[in-house]
């Protein structure tokens, strides 16, 4: 299995543009039904196959995503 990672989405920053969804090679993200205070539907990670590849965070226009990734050393 690939190196394991995860992300945290700041749902108050998210505007539901779905660009992260498009960018995720694992197809792990999806637009949820949750609506934030600004009235946007927000994205969430719905699979736990995240590799921490950072792609989603890179393309997120609203800096809503922080990415964590298991360290090589720890993975051993």
């Amino acid at each position, binding site marked *: 299995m690939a190196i*394991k*990672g*995860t992300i*945290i989405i*700041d749902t*108050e*920053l998210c*505007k*539901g*543009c*779905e*660009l992260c*969804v*498009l*960018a995720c090679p694992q197809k792990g993200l999806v637009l949820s039904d949750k609506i934030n205070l600004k009235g*946007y539907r927000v994205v969430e990670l719905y699979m*736990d196959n995240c590799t*921490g*590849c*950072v*792609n*989603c*965070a*890179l*393309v*997120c*226009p*609203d*800096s*809503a*995503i*922080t*990415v*964590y*990734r*298991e*360290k090589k050393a720890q993975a051993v």
Partner: protein
Amino acid sequence: MEQFLINPDCMVYDNHPVTLTGEPYHYCPGCGHGVIHKVLMEVVRDLGIQEEVIGVAPVGCSVFAYHYMNVDMQEAAHGRASAVATAIKRVRPQNYVFSYQGDGDLAAIGTAETIHTVNRGENILMVFVNNAIYGMTGGQMAPTSLLGMKTSTSPYGRDAASMGNPIKITELLAQLPGAYYVARHAVHTPNAVRKLSKAFKNAFEYQKLNRGTCFIEVVSNCPSGWKMSPVQSIDWIEKNMLPMFPLGDIKVPDPKTGNPVMVKNN
């Protein structure tokens, strides 16, 4: 497992670089400006030059760039960011100076300032966000709008005969001896973002060496102005923008001499 990961040690992408103020963007969902701001400021963080950078914001959707970029900034009049940046750099050559401008700003009303700033080879970084439209004022035709593209002032589509062709200002500027490093990038995919980041980094490094103007066009999207969803806009970039505005280096320093040379077949 996740819980175990979520600790500072394992963080590989921080959505809060110190070089951003943390203020939420006012941009429309999916707007490229957000990514470009972030990438630029990440580079400033990575190079450790936050204290030395002075930025110039345009009139355009990114008029409030200084709300987000946590560096000293000036808000220039529409089209004049490069003149403002010129003056800042001239009186403070010890600082890094960049201008950040849209296509209306840089390639329409500001054409004269753009050309002459580059021609003088001002030691600044010019970031040119080309979204082929006037985003801020509600989607009017920009000098870079594509042929046939419908905008609020070309409701029947842009027509070359009466409105001219989309202008490739970046290619023009590259011809000027004052241009040291000229490239076109984009933010529509993670890899494009990575390349843009590298380009910004190069630009600041060249600026340190006083080499001349570094000019980086970023092909961006404007879902609101284009009247489509953010996801559709990514597709539209690929299908319509990139054929007209191909990505890549246009003028780069020769690795041996350090002198700028045009990249062939661009």
